[in-house]
């Protein structure tokens, strides 16, 4: 490990990997550190990603694609279901990845582009000079080293301690932390090309249960519930066990995964002097779906692009780095994060009777001919009791 780099990237997930790869491609000296002993494990993800979003960054490869998804099924609390096929679901149709291999491939690409990579190497504190971030103290096998850098990219995921140490408050509000549990279940009857989402305040309060195929008879079966709904005997794991006992009593468990996803608004500012925050660390997971892989890659790449310009001009102050913050906020991704945040806030107020009514009437529509807006307008006509919720939904979507 050198004593000095242009860019130090903290975290070896998709955000950090894209930041390091892009920085190296731009001719910067870059170092990526990951505190775990291996990239990509343990998995903390249901591994779903849209096709278009993925192709922006990497050519799809069978080595890390577990399944191709052709449609999504939505199941209401009363069991009513509707299936949204490829044509209608648009960019939501995609792949279920094998993130153990996928994350490793991304880091390999960063290394191939010229970045240094170290695992079992943890950032323990920023190096601060006159209030500016100038690198980090890192611990490798119990030994502390100082690594100086013009700029640090914090890509440390849901924990997001690095930005916190630099003075940004990254705390996720309890009600906006989705508490998640998931099993990889095998020997179960599923449609190997369909993702299934189960809604209901009894089975998954303020969240949902997912079944994402990973092969002919294998799937990621998981749950996310709001932190405020989680309590003794009623935690993500308990609710998931209950669902599985009911649905897949004969499923065999080959992996147990837990984790947290933020569904809050992004950090109010994602840059500071000498620091850029990307991906989950910046609270950029989608508040509706909890998906964050694509947003981590988008912001990882953008961070390195902005960094390259600022470093060549010799100015990495917060002001100089603002094009990163403005860049993602004003992009399609930033706008859809805000829109989906507001939709989520409406959605979590719906009780099971309302969820049933909504999904029942939507399932009766011929979805091929509808845009999302006409769909909501149609739902308003059919559900006069939900006028208030649907009207606010309509105004968010407009």
């Amino acid at each position: 490990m050198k004593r000095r780099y242009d860019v130090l990237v903290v975290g070896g997930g998709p955000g950090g990997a894209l930041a390091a790869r892009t920085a190296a491609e731009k001719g910067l000296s870059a170092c990526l550190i990951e505190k775990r002993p291996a990239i990509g494990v343990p998995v903390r993800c249901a591994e779903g990603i849209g096709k278009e979003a993925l192709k922006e960054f990497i050519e799809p490869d069978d080595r890390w694609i577990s399944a191709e998804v052709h449609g999504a099924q939505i199941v209401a609390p009363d069991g009513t279901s509707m299936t949204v096929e490829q044509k209608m679901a648009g960019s939501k149709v995609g792949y279920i990845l094998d993130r153990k291999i996928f994350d490793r491939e991304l880091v390999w690409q960063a290394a191939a582009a010229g970045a240094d990579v170290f695992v079992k190497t943890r950032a323990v504190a920023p190096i601060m000079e006159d209030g500016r971030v100038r690198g980090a103290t890192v611990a490798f096998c119990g030994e502390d080293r100082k690594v100086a850098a013009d700029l640090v990219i914090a890509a440390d995921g849901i924990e997001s301690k690095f930005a916190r140490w630099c003075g940004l408050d990254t705390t996720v509000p309890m009600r906006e932390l989705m508490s998640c549990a998931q099993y990889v279940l095998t020997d179960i009857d599923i449609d190997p090309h369909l993702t299934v989402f189960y809604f209901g305040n009894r089975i998954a309060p303020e969240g949902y249960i997912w079944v994402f195929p990973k092969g002919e008879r294998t799937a990621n079966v998981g749950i996310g519930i709001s932190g405020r709904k989680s309590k003794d005997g009623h935690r993500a794991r308990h609710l998931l066990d209950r669902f599985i006992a009911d649905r897949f009593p004969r499923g065999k468990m080959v992996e147990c995964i837990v984790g947290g996803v933020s569904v809050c608004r992004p950090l109010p500012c994602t840059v500071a002097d000498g620091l850029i925050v990307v991906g989950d660390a910046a609270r950029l997971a989608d508040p509706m779906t909890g998906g964050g892989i694509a947003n981590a890659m988008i912001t990882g790449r953008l961070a390195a692009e902005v960094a390259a310009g600022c470093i060549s001009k010799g100015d990495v102050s917060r002001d100089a780095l603002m094009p990163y913050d403005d860049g993602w906020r004003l992009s399609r991704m930033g706008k859809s994060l805000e829109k989906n945040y507001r939709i989520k806030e409406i959605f979590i107020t719906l009780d099971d009777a309302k969820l049933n009514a909504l999904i029942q009437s939507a399932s009766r529509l011929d979805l091929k001919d509808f845009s999302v807006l006409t769909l909501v307008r149609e739902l308003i006509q059919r559900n006069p009791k939900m006028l208030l919720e649907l009207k606010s939904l309509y105004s968010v979507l407009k």
Partner: protein
Amino acid sequence: MLVIHRDICGYCGACVSVCPEGALELIDAYLTVDDHCTACRICTRICPLGALEVADEAKV
């Protein structure tokens, strides 16, 4: 005082993200708590597995 049940903990870091004091730190599979912890119980609530507990000082 916060007690970490290591046999239950899945070292996912969800608790780290909600801690208002930044008192929790995950070192690979080993979760630690420092003396900034105020026993506010937010982490004990959100843990997907129930690995965290605020124990009565007297009983510890």
